[in-house]
């Protein structure tokens, strides 16, 4: 039987469909008998739904390095 900590990590892995067959089976067994992990699993699934639904933009690595360069080339005004 896996521990709650192990189950929780597998549960997060499952959100990306990257848990192995055996891991998935162990998780399901655990969720059958552990109420707090079952509730965690529901919240985790809900977080996945929220992330899918959210409009999240990220700056590319290049855009970030350009910003950093810009910050380095404009030194703060000394008093």
């Amino acid at each position, binding site marked *: 039987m896996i521990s709650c900590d192990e189950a929780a990590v597998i549960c997060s892995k499952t959100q*990306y469909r990257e848990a192995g067959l055996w891991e998935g089976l162990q998780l399901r067994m655990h969720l059958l008998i552990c109420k707090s992990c079952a509730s965690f699993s529901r919240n985790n699934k809900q977080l996945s739904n929220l*992330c899918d639904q959210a*409009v*999240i933009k990220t700056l590319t690595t290049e855009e970030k390095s350009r*910003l*950093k360069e*810009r910050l380095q080339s404009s030194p703060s005004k000394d*008093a």
Partner: protein
Amino acid sequence: MDSEGRQTILNPEAWVDRYADYLYNYAISRVGDENIAKDILQDTFVAALQASKSFKGNAAERTWLVAILKHKIIDHYRRSNSQKAKAEVPLSSEFDFSGEGNPLQRQIADPESIRENDSIENSELGVAIQNCLSQIPQNHARAFSLKTIEHWTTEDICKELNISPSNLWVMVHRARTALMECLNTQWFKNN
């Protein structure tokens, strides 16, 4: 004297990694245009750097940057309002199919506009998620962001961050746990 003991000391080098995505999403949700948001973001960082000497240290760095960002967003609307007064709207070009389109049509039919394709709530949700991410340990946030938002493969992230897959999953998991808690207090309470 060593100033490292001060918790409120500013760290401009880390601003971009830590706050850029949050501030960027915040700006997008307010101005509805990615390029304008990028300009505002850059202005914000530059202004913050120039004002860093006057940073009182009585606010968290993040709160302080958001306050500057809000000012820059207001500045943007002030500028565009004063331009609006001068703008000419050529009424006769309503049926002009010359390719350029008239300014009004361009505004209405912009397919890139965030506000048109997605509800405002979903971009607010994005801001809430980025807000939470900016408050958790940075390596966890990065791992989560690459996996969940940018949809990198596990292999690529492990290479990029130089960690093992099991390390990655623990980091992603910690980020998710922290996010659930953070969103619970910040997002669900307001909705």
